[in-house]
């Protein structure tokens, strides 16, 4: 068999260079895209229609910072304004999550394996990643820390604030770095008192992490969850073990 034609630049450039590459994209990447075409990508504006309770909690805990960085929603908080601020916080939170490389140590999908379901919660499904905040997808390939796609509401805002400021203060064996630049000092009326409070990036990253998986947390769509309403069919029995 004469194979000399396989050794010419036209064959290596054309068939293997373009041909095989395009075939691989068609087979391996176009497939998923076509299969998911009926699940439209949600925009941040659509997502932010359901403001998570933790975002209201941030307003209560850090009112000065919240008003300084996002705006004053009034009292009682104006829902339209809160939705607008929530969208802003989600966008910035994801930006911070990417800038700091969080996704290199935390994945964002639960595999269909018994131990992961017990530890994290329900297995991921394709539609929950079909949104603007998964552009590019933040699946991750490594878990130095736990998966975060079911993180919503597992821990309080205070826990997250303390943890971002100094992870070892709340999880002594953690190897997570400190993110002190998510915080600023605020003078308190007390004697020589300063308080460490989250700045805009801090509020945003807490909002983003508390949002991850909030769609699983709420039993009725859009209904804010109260502290007593955290019943979710035993999925979180092991959550403190994460």
């Amino acid at each position, binding site marked *: 068999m004469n194979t000399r034609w396989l050794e*010419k630049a036209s064959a290596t450039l054309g068939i293997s260079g373009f041909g095989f590459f395009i075939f691989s994209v068609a087979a391996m990447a176009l497939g998923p895209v076509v299969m998911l075409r009926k699940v439209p990508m949600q925009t941040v504006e659509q997502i932010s229609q359901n403001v998570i309770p933790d975002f209201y909690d941030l307003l209560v805990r850090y009112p000065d910072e919240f008003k300084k960085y996002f705006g004053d929603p009034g009292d009682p908080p104006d829902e339209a304004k809160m939705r607008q601020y929530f969208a802003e916080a989600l966008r910035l939170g994801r930006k911070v999550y990417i800038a700091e490389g969080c996704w290199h140590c935390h994945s964002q999908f639960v595999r269909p394996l018994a131990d992961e379901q*017990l530890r994290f919660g329900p297995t991921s499904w*394709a539609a929950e990643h079909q949104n603007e905040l998964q552009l590019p997808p933040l699946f991750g390939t490594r878990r130095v820390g736990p998966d975060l796609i079911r993180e919503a509401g597992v821990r309080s805002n205070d826990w997250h604030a303390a943890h971002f400021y100094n992870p070892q203060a709340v999880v002594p064996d953690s190897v997570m770095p400190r993110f*002190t630049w998510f915080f600023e000092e605020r003078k308190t009326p007390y004697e020589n008192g300063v308080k460490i409070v989250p700045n805009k990036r801090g509020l945003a990253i807490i909002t983003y992490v508390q949002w991850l998986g909030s769609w699983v947390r709420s039993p009725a769509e859009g209904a804010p969850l109260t502290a007593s309403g955290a019943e979710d069919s035993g999925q979180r029995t092991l959550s403190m073990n994460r």
Partner: protein
Amino acid sequence: MTDRATTHPAPLAPSGAGERPLVNLTLVKYHIIASLVWFFVGLTGGFLFSMQFFRYYPFPGVELLSPGRVRMVHTNMMAYGFILNAYFAGMLWAIPRLTGFPILSDKLGKVFFWGWQVILAFVVGGILTGHAQAVEWGETPIFTDPFIALWALLGIVNLVAPILKTRGRPLYVTLWYFTASFVWTILNYLMGNYIPQFFVPGAGGAAVAGLFIHDLVGLFVTPIGWGLMYYFVPSILNRPIWSHALSLVGFWGLAFFYPLNGVHHFLYSTIPMYVQYGAVTATVAVELVVTTVIVNFFMTLRGMGRTLVTSLPIRWFYTGMVAYFTTCLQCAVQVQLPVQQIIHFTDWVVAHAHLVMFAVFGSWIMGFFTELWPRLVRRPWKSRALLEWHYWLTTLGIWLMFLTLTALGLQEGYLWRGLNPWEDMLRSAIPFWVFRTFTGLMIIAGTVVFAYHAWATARQPAPAAVAERVEGAEPAAL
């Protein structure tokens, strides 16, 4: 076909001759130096980041040196700084010799060289100031991406010109790999950096990103590495590659199956299962193809095993090939779904990545640096002992790192599987992580030895024969 490659490289064209020399030695030298400089940047990044794992990071609370950002500098500088510069050095040497034509333009080569280093500096700056992009191996900030694509294209135009001047004659194996890789790299870079960033979210985007992660290794780093092996191994051994037929099988097998592998980085994810199964099958197929290539190279060495002792470049090359066979065999095993259940998300994968990127391609690069440097500075290596130190420190370092992290990966996987508290995994991992940093230090030490040795060799007085020839020109410079 093989004759041109198998002849030992011709004597260097005298500099300053009226005719344009075949190989632009200055460019080759510059790319080697730049490659080593970025290699040190990457090594420093990896070393610093590794200390975070046992909480001895030297700059806690410094935003610009946040461990998460430094990690991305580590991986990106290894790929685009160390490996890409080294590959350009190798290709600038090999392509003119294989085709008989010099690169398109020496000026363009210079523009590419300096432009590329400036782009890399911007990439480092961009990542450290928080502008990274969330695509693995493509964290290069989005504003640098068009420049990277454009500059890569410039470099490729320069290198592809001599190949096209052969006017449709059959090419030597090396050039099959190079030409295909030129197309793949550009297409892949544009696909991976733009489609998941702007157009396709979630599972579809992850499928594209998976292709990109894998293609960067499989369609840029691997083929150019193999191309260089097909050039340097026969030329140093002074004998042709054992089987031309196996060369054909190896190239076309890799070209067909490698691009189909990508999704195996996201097994058990929400990407449709048929794609995942396809990727697993293609990965096993790649292992079969790789075996043919490995057999071909080891048969080329038959009866000449002694060169592994006498020739440092040959030893580096075959050490890399053993690592290559190991990683590929490992691939075929670890993509199996039951194995994935345990090892995915663990340090096993980190071990695998280091083995493939450094124990394979790093060894090959160090091998042809060892081969080329004396020719570029026109002086023999100063010390055999230092060459050995470089080899043993680096090789032991990377293999110990691989073994440590592989063992740790299994431990992590089983601890998670057993539903142990997360912190149990961290506590039990720290001794491994400490040792990992130590193995990294061995690699750094080996590289320092090499860099010093290269500098000391270049500073030596010229050997008599060469000195006579250049004496009239500028004896002071020697």
